[in-house]
Every structure is written in C-alpha cells, then in structure tokens.
C-alpha cells in the first residue's frame, strides 16, 4: 500500500505503457480495421495519460481531443464509407513482412542498446510547473500558450497554411465530380 503511495506514478506509467503497447500491437495485427481503430484509440488515450504523468497537461488534453475526437472519428467515418467487411483482406501481411519483422527486431536491439547508454541526470524541475521565458511561474497551459504565441508564433502561422492545404486537399481528393 505504502509502495503504491511511494511509487504510484511509476506504477501508472507501467500500466499505461502496457496499454499503449497493447493497443499498438492491436493496430498492426487486427484483421478488421474497425477493431484496429478501437485499439488505436486505446493507444491514444494511454499516451495521453503518459503525457499527463510528465506534467504536460495541455498536450495531454489536446491529444485526447484531437486524436480521440477528430482523427479517430475521421478514421471510423472512412471505414464506414468504404465498408470493408464487404471485401476482407485475403492476406493480412505483405510478402515483405518477414523482413519487416527481422528489421524491427534489429532496430529495437540496435537503438535500444544506444538508448540504454544514455545517462540522464535527475529531472530539473517540479513536474507541475514550468517557468516561462519571462521567469514567472504559470500553469502549464498558460506557459505553453505563451511559448506558442511568442517565440513559436511563426510555425503557428505556417501551421495555418498547412491546415488550409490539408482542407483543400481533402476536398479536392474526396469530392465526387
């Protein structure tokens, strides 16, 4: 019990990490894309939780809204549209998947070996609060907002163009003529 109180955060991390991985595995292994989408949602939520565990409340919430809301709906919608159960995949994986598997293992081994070598010092700050450029302490959302609208304003503007293109593209490609 006291263990939980001591290491609650850590336990939660492992829990959500497992959920995220499970969801991911589900995505790549489910035959029916619908189930795939569901497990993807699982991953999204787990990841969101992990964000929160690292004190990124704002991003966590955005993750839930955008992914869990927008993107997921989009996927489901398309899946409905092309109602796939009429044409189930004969084979799930392409011919190259054995290689892909081998490669995945290799990548994990190789990069993992690297990552485990990395020495991180203790985290610098109290998780809840971040300090903005101007030095006063704010809530996370506020801080992110500050950053977003000051130094990172330019990317923010460009993102608008990006989204415009995405919109136009979706229309152009999706529109029946």
């Amino acid at each position: 019990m006291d263990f939980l109180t001591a290491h609650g955060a850590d336990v939660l991390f492992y829990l959500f990490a497992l959920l995220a991985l499970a969801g991911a595995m589900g995505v790549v292994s489910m035959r029916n894309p619908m189930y795939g989408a569901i497990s993807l949602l699982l991953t999204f939520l787990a990841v969101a939780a992990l964000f929160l565990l690292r004190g990124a409340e704002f991003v966590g919430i955005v993750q839930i809204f955008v992914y869990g809301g927008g993107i997921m709906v989009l996927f489901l919608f398309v899946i409905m549209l092309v109602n796939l159960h009429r044409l189930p995949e004969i084979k799930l994986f392409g011919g190259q998947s054995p290689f892909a598997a081998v490669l995945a293992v290799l990548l994990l081994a190789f990069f993992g070996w690297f990552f485990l070598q990395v020495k991180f010092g203790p985290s610098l700050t109290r998780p809840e609060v971040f300090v903005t450029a101007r030095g006063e302490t704010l809530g996370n959302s506020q801080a992110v907002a500050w950053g977003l609208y000051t130094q990172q304003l330019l990317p923010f503007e460009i993102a608008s163009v990006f989204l415009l293109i995405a919109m136009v593209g979706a229309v152009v490609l999706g529109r029946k003529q």
Partner: protein
Amino acid sequence: MPSAAEYQLLAPEILLAAAGLLLLLGGAIGRGMGNRESALVSIVSLALTAGLVLRVQSVIPGRMLVLGGSFVLDGFSFFWKLLVLMATALVVLLSVRFLDEGNYRASEYYALLLLATSGMLFMASGYTLLTIWISLETMALASYILAGYFKRERRSNEAALKYFILGALSSGILLYGISLLYGATGTVQLAGLSEGLRNAQGNPLVPLGWLMLAAGLFFKVAAVPFHIWTPDVYVGAPTPVTAWLAVASKAASFAILLRIFYEGLGSVKVEWQAVVAVVAAVTMIWGNIAALTQQNVKRMLAYSSIAHAGYVLIGVLAVSQVGLWSVIFYLLAYSFITLGAFGTVILLERKEYAGETIADYAGLARRSPFLAAMMLLFMLALTGIPPTGGFVGKFYLFAAAVEGGWGWVAVIGVLTSAISLYYYFGIVLNMYLRDSDQTTPTPLHAPALVGAIAFCAFATLALGILPGPFIDFAKNSLLPLP
C-alpha cells in the same frame, strides 16, 4: 515579443499564401476562374512575390534573425526563394496546356501550387527545426495532393498514395531524429543546436538524432536508398507536377539540407561528411545505372534526377566556399535543364503512357527540328557537355571535390556522368539517327509552353557560355561555413 515591423519581412510569404487563398475563392465563386485566368494570377503573384523578396533583400543588411530566432534572412535564403519562385512560374507555364488535357479544376491546382511554394519560401528561411519541419510538411502535403491531382487516373492516384505513405514514414523518421536532437541539446534552434552538440559530445542520442534527420532529408532530395519513391511518383504524377517535384521541391529540400547540415550540425561536420560521401557515391552509381535500361522517358528522367542529387551531394560534402556555390550554381542550371526537358516531354505526351517512351522520339529532328534541337541541348547539359550550364555546374562540383580531398567521389562522379551519356543519347539517337513511323506523336501546339522551353534552353546556354555573373550571384548567397 516579435514586433510588427518584423512581420513586414514576411511580406513575400504572406503575399503568396494570400494569392493561394484568392485563387481558392476565385475557384469557388460562381463557375469559377478558368485555367488561363488562374495561371495568369499565379504568374503575376509569383512575380510580385519575387519582387518583394528582392525588396526585402535590399533592406536587409547581410544576415538577420527575426521572430525569436526562428526566421533568418540572408543571401542564401533569398537565392533559394528566387529560384523556387522562378521554377514554379515556369511550372505554371508548363501546366496550362496540360490541364486542358484532363479536365480538372484548375484554380485549386494553382492554389495548392502557390501555397506549397509559400511553404518552400518558409523552408528557405526557417531557422528552427520546428519551423523548417512544419514548412517542409506544408510543402510535402501539397505535393502529395498535386501528385494525385488527376485522381481519375490510376497512375496519378497510385503515385499520390505511394508518395504519401512513404513521405509520412520519412517525415516520421525525420521527426524522431529531431526529437532526439532536442533531447540531447534542449533546443531546436539551429545556432543553439550546433552549440549544444558541441557540448553533447559522446551522447549516443546525437548520432542517432542527426542520422535519422539526415535520412528524412535524403528522402526529400531523393538520395539512394531513400530515392525509392522517386521513379514511380515521377511517372505517375501529372508531368508538370513531376517537373515541379524534380526542380522546386528538390531545390527547397537542398536548401534546408544545407542549412541544417552547415548551421545546425556544423559541429559534427566530420562525421556527416563521411556518411554523405558514401550516400553521394551510391546515389550517383545507382541512379545512372538504373536509368540505363529505362524505356519510359519520364522514368528515365526520374533516375537522372536521382543521379543529379548525388552530384549535388558532392558539393555538399566538400564543406567549402567552392562546394557551396557549386551546389547553388548547379541547382540553378539543373532547374532550367530539367524544366526544359520535362516541357518537351509534355509536348509529346498523350493519355496512358503514349508519347512517353523513348521510341516515340524517333525522327523528331525531322518532324520538328527546333524542339529536337532544344531536347538535344538539354540532354547535352544533363550529360555535362560544354557549352552548357550542366557542364559548368559539374565542373565546379568536381572541382570542389578534388579541392576538398574527396578525389574518389569525384572519380565516381566523372565516370558515372560518362555512363549517363549512354541513356541521354538514347533519346538523341532516336531523335536524329532514327526515322519516325506514323505512330510517333507530333508535338502539341502550345506557344506558352514552347516559349518556356526556349527560355530554359537560352538560360542553359547562357549559364554555360557566360557563367560569370551567375557565379557572382551564387557567391553572394553563401552560408557561413562550419
């Protein structure tokens, strides 16, 4: 807190984006703007943008960081902006006749073109990995759409699909690399990054980071083995879009590649030079050899553009003044040449691969000597034979390599460029040495297009015979060497 004054410096990008919006509106209102009008608007707005770029350049003293150090204004960026604008303008000229063929909404096409181009402008000036990446995505997303713009054609759609999936994957890799670099240095701003890397020696995240970042960039410039998407996409996409990908997109990608490698990764120069050398060599060999047996001209040009990416990489890896402006000059020449070549392809192209095979060029010299002469010139330039810009460009690249001590890369370079004669002259051989049969198509009648081609030819010759001014131009567009 960025001042309003600083935003004035964004005028060109803003103007272009606005032009894109205008076209969208124009397309939406009523029966919508037609092909010609949209093209006209695009040309004008591109020209205005170019004007603004020059204006901005005139007020900028040398080099200037604005908007919280996320946006840089220097000769380098101006050069690329102008190059990209010029290329896009020519692509617009190439597109007009082409869009008439398959009837698709022209206005959105041009709108996407302009918006993407504005993305490229941002790329040229981006100074934080974040800015660069988001603007890169902007360009990429638009090019996916444009590649699939002729959506009722299976090839176009297939191209879009392949380009999209692979592009997404590559940008994922690139992004992962960025995240690692961020983790290692705590910043995404290039100057800070370079500084941080100097301190982060021995941190395993660093090599992984920049390698994955490099992988993403190599994908954009189509260097082996990340070229894999190029042939299919080039063949499948509408030819003007192909030309645009081969020139504008490639140029912008090289701009950020140089920017990141020189300014961001300057402190790990020695390491990436070696890697780039290998990639360059492999790319030249692979691209040229694979092109040898192609029968489809677009595909052959795709491989040739891969090969040329390899040549440009020579200039990149020889970190020196010569190397830098050889890259700049070469891409300038390459743009004209490639646009001209694709323009000729367009003139002969018909639905469903027709007019795209080398055999379709048989006897072109008899049917339309002028066009054949142009094509001959472009082929010579691509091979790197004087008196064309292609030769001068290659000359400087190899010069840079020899000077920088990359003799072996230079040797591979010259030998492969000799090999390339093989397939480039496959076309010449058909145009001049073979006689045509009735199946071979006669070129379309498209004054604007022919004009564009002629202009490219003229530029190619000018770059070859009087490269002096252009080189001085390039010399004013250098980056600080790491």
